[in-house]
């Protein structure tokens, strides 16, 4: 994937976990926003965060995002069992081969 995420992270209920999303100068580093999606097992992806750090209506404030340089991060604070899911970052990429929406490879969050 053009955007690199750790394959998995885990934490106990109540703890915090951080998911990184590393890109390059043609996507995140070029100033393109990073957005995040949550996909629970067997379900469609769900819109989780937009514009690096903005939560859509209905998303708990336990979820927070940030972006710096060529990377972005999603932090889940006060981890709950319902947060167990795959998380994907997404941005936009301008390269010599063309322009593309790009996703990270996904990070599986396990609640211990």
């Amino acid at each position, binding site marked *: 994937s053009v955007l690199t995420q750790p394959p998995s992270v885990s934490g106990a209920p109540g703890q915090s976990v951080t998911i990184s999303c590393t890109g390059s100068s043609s996507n995140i580093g070029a100033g393109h926003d990073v*957005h995040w999606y949550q996909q629970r097992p067997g379900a469609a*992806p*769900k819109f989780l965060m*937009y514009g690096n750090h903005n939560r859509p209506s209905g998303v708990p404030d336990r979820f927070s995002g940030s972006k710096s340089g060529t990377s972005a991060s999603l932090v889940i604070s006060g981890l709950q069992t319902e947060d167990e899911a795959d998380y994907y970052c997404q941005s936009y990429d301008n390269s010599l081969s063309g322009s*593309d929406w790009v*996703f*990270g490879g996904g990070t599986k969050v396990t609640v211990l």
Partner: protein
Amino acid sequence: EVQLVQSGAEVKKPGESLKISCKASGYTFPNYWIGWVRQMTGEGLEWMGIIYPDDSDTTYSPSFQGQITISVDRSINTAYLQWASLRASDSAKYYCARSEAGKGTAFFDYWGQGTQVNVSS
């Protein structure tokens, strides 16, 4: 309520054609882009392309250009993803999703439930 409802699962043979659909409701269909995303079993999300229903302006991912066709029928608020000749490697779940923009700061705010496509001889 915004809804994207996709057509049902498909089982096809290599070389066959296929057109799957995504019916939108709860918003002004022509004014929002509809994109398609592939997810192979156990894998991540891949952006395939996007269309603006108002004028059918379409952009394809370089990875899928020439392999798929994205279209819309504005009269029935429906977007389509089609293949002229399927391959076994096209087996995946396909999602449609809505966006306010086609590029740049764009993101998908509503998703369909997905359509499973299985291609096997």
